[in-house]
């Protein structure tokens, strides 16, 4: 049986596509890059990752311009068919701006770029994205962002992950990651693709990629 094909999106300014592709490979999937001007996902695509970075230089609002590109029409159709989509950092911002997830990411309350390892509490164990983890269990995953404060109505989403302890960025309800009500579209500010190797201090990000490929 061939490996599950996962489209890894690249926009002008995307940075983390190689780490995302490596995480897909490490999970047993086959990563294939797709580009902003493509009108369709690569043939045989089963799941989509939108990696982090600064698409279109964050101009206007983070994710705003990327969310209006042709490839996002294809992602919307994929999600409408129940296909899985994982948006990380700028990918989360793109999913919110495209309407695939509710809310919007605003500048951190401190106006500082924050880069550190974070403890994330599983807030909803009923989605596929945290595997068998129970509510309250903690995942250690790094984040690095300037615009990570989620603003929206938590009732319109499933809050999957919350920052444990202090609220680092002013996110409503300490939201770190949400899925849509259907559970097939997930976005988070922290970077699970950077928590795949024991050498880097944590392998807790593996659970999200395992869910993407399942």
């Amino acid at each position: 049986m061939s490996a599950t094909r996962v489209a890894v999106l690249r926009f002008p300014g995307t940075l983390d596509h190689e780490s995302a592709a490596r995480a897909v490979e490490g999970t047993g999937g086959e990563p294939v890059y797709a580009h902003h001007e493509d009108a369709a996902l690569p043939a045989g695509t089963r799941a989509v990752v939108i990696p982090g970075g600064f698409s279109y230089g964050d101009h206007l609002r983070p994710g705003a311009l990327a969310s209006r590109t042709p490839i996002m029409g294809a992602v919307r159709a994929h999600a409408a068919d129940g296909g899985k989509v994982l948006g990380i950092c700028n990918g989360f911002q793109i999913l919110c701006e495209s309407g695939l997830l509710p809310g919007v990411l605003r500048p951190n309350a401190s106006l500082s770029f924050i880069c550190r390892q974070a403890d994330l509490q599983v807030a909803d164990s009923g989605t596929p994205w945290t595997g068998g983890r129970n509510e309250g269990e903690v995942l250690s995953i790094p984040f690095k962002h300037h615009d990570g404060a989620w603003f929206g109505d938590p009732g319109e989403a499933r809050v999957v992950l919350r920052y444990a302890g202090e609220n680092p960025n002013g996110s409503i309800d300490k939201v770190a990651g949400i899925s849509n009500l259907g559970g097939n579209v997930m976005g988070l500010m922290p970077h699970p693709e950077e928590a795949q190797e024991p050498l880097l201090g944590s392998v807790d990000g593996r659970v999200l990629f395992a869910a993407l490929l399942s």
Partner: protein
Amino acid sequence: MTLVVVTVMPKKGVLDPQGQAVQGALAHMGFGDVSDVRVGKRIELEIAGHDPAGQATKMCEDLLANQLIEDFHVEVPG
């Protein structure tokens, strides 16, 4: 060609950390009378064709403003 000016502002009640930072700096500089600062954007559009203000409004709804957190105002000066 018609010049259309779009102003995009953070909604009242939505925290504007940029405005707060500017207000703090102004207070340090001695401008203590400033009780509130909000920072937004001005976008100038040169539009050809029919109903430039209507076109600009549609652009605001579709892209230029995120109405969850921002209000917009469309103006045709002159």
